């Protein structure tokens, strides 16, 4: 019975696809502590592989070109870090000093709003209770953030060591590793396996390169915008907007939260500043959608917007921020694997039917 079911092309595709998904899920669970450095290293591999190829074109061996790329990566990382980190830390301290003012403004606005409701509708909202609850909640978040922060420093140090090492070995050995694995496929599915790999690799490389460039451009545009409107910490806000832009659809909305909160910190509250902060993100989004996406990310993934949004929410719920960032490439990869498998299995099945009908 099960065998008959699996003979059907769609059932067979689903069966093999489930097996592949299960293997990938087990690998992800086993590699969970190293998953973030591995994902970042793969993204860097996609970005830096072309540079290694240029070195190889000029006669450098694979070893020498991988080492040169690693040195460039460490060099740029060190110079960039030494230039930007002091600036970022100053802006972070200034942001920290502003947070009490932000909360105070929010509380005042909450009180004003409840008084307005009381005077106009006659309803009484217990704003003091709400504010207390809000601050208790904030207190819990703050504690968690501090614990997360200390963990983050440990993770960051681990990343700084692991990412260059992983990236070096990926650039040097990934092709051999991939060949050894794919060459183990049986003759009947050898070409199909390579074809699926080719499509996945091509699409992922395009997507990663595109989204990295897109995030960089968004970071520059929003930094300039926040600087022009006179918002504090424009560079930090720009970097956060650039990083959040890695999450399609949801990221730009999240990117609005911090600039709006900072605009609220101005006393007296200046509505034009809040409007301008939102406008900077919206203008950056318009530029992004009209110029950057068509030029660098277009057709990198071919997914319905609803699938993208639902995928981001589910992945975000399961794996947090990293889940939201990797949701699209993972869904897109699974889509290519499923379609490639189905196409191959269906062709084989059609051929078998044709041969049977001839004989």
């Amino acid at each position, binding site marked *: 019975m099960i065998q008959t079911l699996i003979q059907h092309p769609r059932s067979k595709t689903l069966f093999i696809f489930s097996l592949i998904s299960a293997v990938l899920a087990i690998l992800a669970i086993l590699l969970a502590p190293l998953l973030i450095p591995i994902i970042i290293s793969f993204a860097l591999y996609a970005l830096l592989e072309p540079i290694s190829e240029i070195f190889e074109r000029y006669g450098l061996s694979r070893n020498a070109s991988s080492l040169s790329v690693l040195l460039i990566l460490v060099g740029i990382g060190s110079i960039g870090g030494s230039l930007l980190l002091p600036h970022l830390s100053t802006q972070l301290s200034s942001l920290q000093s502003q947070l009490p003012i932000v909360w105070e403004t929010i509380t005042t606005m909450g009180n004003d709003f409840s008084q307005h409701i009381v005077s106009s509708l006659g309803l009484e909202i217990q704003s003091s209770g709400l504010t207390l609850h809000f601050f208790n909640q904030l207190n819990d978040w703050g504690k968690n953030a501090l614990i997360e922060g200390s963990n983050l420093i440990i993770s960051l140090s681990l990343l700084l060591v692991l990412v260059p090492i992983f990236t070096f070995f990926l650039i040097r050995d990934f092709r051999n590793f991939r060949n050894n694995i794919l060459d183990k496929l049986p003759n009947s599915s050898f070409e199909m396996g390579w074809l699926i790999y080719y499509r996945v690799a091509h699409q992922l490389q395009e997507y990663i390169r595109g989204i990295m460039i897109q995030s960089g451009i968004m970071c520059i545009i929003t930094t300039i915008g926040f600087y022009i409107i006179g918002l504090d910490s424009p560079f930090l806000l720009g970097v956060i907007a650039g990083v959040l832009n890695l999450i399609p659809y949801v990221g730009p909305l999240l990117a609005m939260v911090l600039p709006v909160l900072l605009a609220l910190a101005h006393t007296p509250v200046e509505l034009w500043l809040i409007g301008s902060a939102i406008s900077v993100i919206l203008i950056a989004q318009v530029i992004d959608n009209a110029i950057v996406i068509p030029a660098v990310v277009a057709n990198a993934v071919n997914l319905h917007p609803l699938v993208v949004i639902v995928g981001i929410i589910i992945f975000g719920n399961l794996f947090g921020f990293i889940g939201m960032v990797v949701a699209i490439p993972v869904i897109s990869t699974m889509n290519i694997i499923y379609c490639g498998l189905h196409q191959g299995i269906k062709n*084989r099945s059609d051929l078998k039917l044709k041969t049977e009908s001839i004989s």
Partner: protein
Amino acid sequence: MNSKHPLWQNLFRPKEDRISEVTDMWMSTPLFDKITKRECRDLVKTMHPRHYKKGEMVFSSGDIGASIVLIRSGGIEIKATEKLLAELTAGDFFGEVALIIDEPRTADAIASEESELIFFLRTDLDEWVKRSPKSGAQFMLNIATVLAARLRHTNILLSLQNN
């Protein structure tokens, strides 16, 4: 200890004699015309040898192809709707259209005897073109020449059949 001892050898390193032999085979085809032997040899190291039993299907009509195939040993029959189109032997190559376009194969390829085939995949070609654009462009030109010659041959056959 002698490094040639099997225990200390890199098991994944392709055998030298096979690489030289396959390089010579590719160099004698029009596909590697005006491309240096050294470059061809480097490329051969990335290719994929596979063994087929007698009667085993290499690919069938309708499969999406991803490679060109060189016969190192044995023989291959090319068939379309059960009609034998060609019998290929060691040194011959087939399936070159798949290197250029992402379209289904138009014929079946079946091993007529125990065969060793060397697959040159589109992935290998893409990576080679990025590393050596000049040689890659020459290779593309050579493929175009081969395809044009086959098209011309088919046209002549068709016109002879019509007459």
